[in-house]
């Protein structure tokens, strides 16, 4: 039971962190069309900065690990520092990567950025201890709470879920605002959006920085839970897991991210660890990655909008405006009325439902 409890609480933490990642990528790709194949870099930045922020200053040549930005900051400042690190890195990379370029070029730029930064951190041991990475990162408030490890892990899982709940409210509010609508407009037709007054580069940079901050925060939460971080944990393939969750769950639907995160990083990548070992060591791991890749392709080909597609916005029926233009007669309370069968513009036929508007349930 002890092992099982530990396993489940770990899964909950991973689920929460992957969910935050999926929301971040959904903002960037689902709403704005930015193909951020460097996503994991921003999470890694959060991991390193949060880790260094609690490890204390680097003690010099005799220390077994060397890093920059060492400090001993109280909880939750390291998490805020992690979010800030993700945002700052996104601002720097975004200045050249989210300019108006073709999306396939943008994806290539992101992938290259990811590889360069990985090589840099891996080979320069003075930044974040090179290949060995940072270890011994303490759990926040562990001694102050005075709980057993199993109890502490459940408290931590709840902490992560609480942050997810707050983040969901914030992300939904942003996505449903006029700002969120502008993101979708530049995603669909940037020339037209620009000709209507929207500054696509500025909007992309804003969303890229917000996504970077969320990624950094998720990294901070992750490293404070697992206690270590090294280049082996942030290969570019990790980004593809989150992208697959996004495609499976439903591009542009934040609730779909719940489903996609549950299916891809949790069920596909974690459940097989319950299966009896078959074949040679590593075979199950290899099969997991094949399933991730096949899921990506299958959803792109057969269900590109994912399991829970972006939701249709229903226009609010404003009685005053409708009355002014003589549209009150076309308001029908019929709840079953659907979007009309579409023909020519001179053939208005269907009804407009009365109501307050909003997204379709």
């Amino acid at each position: 039971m002890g092992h099982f409890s530990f396993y489940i609480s770990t899964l909950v933490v991973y689920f929460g962190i992957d969910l935050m990642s999926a929301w971040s990528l959904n903002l960037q790709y689902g709403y704005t069309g930015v193909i951020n194949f460097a996503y994991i870099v921003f999470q890694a930045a959060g991991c390193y900065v949060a880790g260094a922020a609690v490890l204390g200053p680097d003690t010099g040549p005799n220390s077994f690990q060397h890093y920059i930005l060492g400090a001993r900051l109280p909880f939750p400042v390291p998490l805020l520092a992690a979010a800030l690190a993700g945002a700052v890195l996104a601002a720097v990379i975004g200045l050249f990567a989210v300019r108006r370029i073709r999306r396939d070029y943008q994806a290539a730029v992101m992938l290259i950025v990811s590889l360069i930064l990985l090589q840099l951190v891996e080979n320069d041991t003075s930044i974040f201890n090179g290949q060995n990475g940072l270890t011994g990162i303490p759990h926040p408030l562990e001694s102050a709470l005075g709980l057993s490890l199993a109890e502490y892990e459940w408290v931590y899982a709840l902490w992560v879920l609480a942050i997810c709940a707050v983040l969901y409210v914030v992300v939904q509010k942003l996505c449903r605002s006029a700002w969120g609508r502008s993101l979708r407009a530049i995603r669909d037709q940037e020339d037209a959006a620009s000709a209507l007054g929207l500054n696509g580069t500025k909007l992309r940079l804003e969303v890229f920085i917000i996504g970077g901050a969320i990624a950094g925060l998720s990294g901070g939460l992750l490293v404070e839970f697992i206690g270590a971080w090294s280049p082996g944990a942030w290969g570019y393939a990790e980004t593809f897991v989150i992208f697959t969750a996004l495609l499976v769950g439903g591009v542009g639907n934040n609730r779909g991210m719940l489903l996609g995160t549950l299916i891809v990083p949790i069920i596909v990548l974690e459940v097989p660890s319950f299966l009896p070992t078959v074949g040679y060591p590593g075979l199950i791991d290899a099969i997991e990655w094949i399933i991730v890749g096949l899921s990506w392709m299958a959803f792109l080909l057969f269900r590109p909008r994912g399991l829970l597609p972006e939701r249709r916005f229903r226009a609010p029926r404003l009685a005053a405006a409708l009355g002014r233009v003589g549209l009150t007669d076309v308001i029908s309370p019929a709840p079953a009325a659907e979007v009309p069968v579409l023909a020519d513009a001179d053939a208005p036929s269907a009804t407009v439902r009365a109501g307050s508007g909003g997204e379709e349930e």
Partner: protein
Amino acid sequence: MSSVGEGTAAVMSSRARARERPQSPAVLEVRDVVVRYGGVVAVNGVSLDVHRGEILGLIGPNGAGKSSLLAAVGGQQRVQSGTILLQGRDVTRTAPYTRARHGLVRTFQTTSEFENMTVFENLLVAGRGASGASLWRATFGWRRYRAEERRVEEKAWEILGRFEMADLVDAYGRELSGGQRRLVEIMRCLMRDPAVLLLDEPMVGIAPHLVAKFVRDLRAVAAEGIGLVIVEHALEVIEQLCDVVVVMALGEIIAEGTYQQVVADEEVRRAYLA
């Protein structure tokens, strides 16, 4: 066949006639604009004026430089030299979104509706004064944002009613017919309360029986005091719609006047109508 001298005389006379246009200050002034693609000169020193409430038709053979000129005015194409004044303000070097904020909006040759957004959302995106489009206000200015959003929504309903598109309010852009998409583009432009509206081949994809309605709609738009510039190959539409017609060939204006005047012009007949 007329000589070069005769052609020039025809141009001069048609331009002279064109000076009978409104005496109010031009809302859009294009002065000696040059657009080059590498070594190819697409627009060569073109000048024209558009007044409030006026519909200016831009016609000419393929490759004449009409769409390049429209792109230069809209800001999608950089100009090598020349000046573009919008309501007296020099916008020659500004981005398209800045020009839109100053009152110049446009549609494109291929329909450009936001296909994964509903008709209503297509209109809201362009809603002038929707301060929620700013990240800061969407996040922290909730009360003011709601009030402005409501005003934009009311305006969208009014425009939908005017164009008889209210029944399609919740349809996605991708679910519309070609003609409906064109109407959405124009309605979207009107949401910004423009001073100048540029339309690039607006009749492409419009069913023949809808053309008359479309012409009426555009006339109503101009009657609001908006200056319209239309690039169009359907000459019957130009004839019905335009107050003044400018004919381009090989990057230059070869005639300017009313429709009847320019189609009677010998050089226009030779370069375009023949």
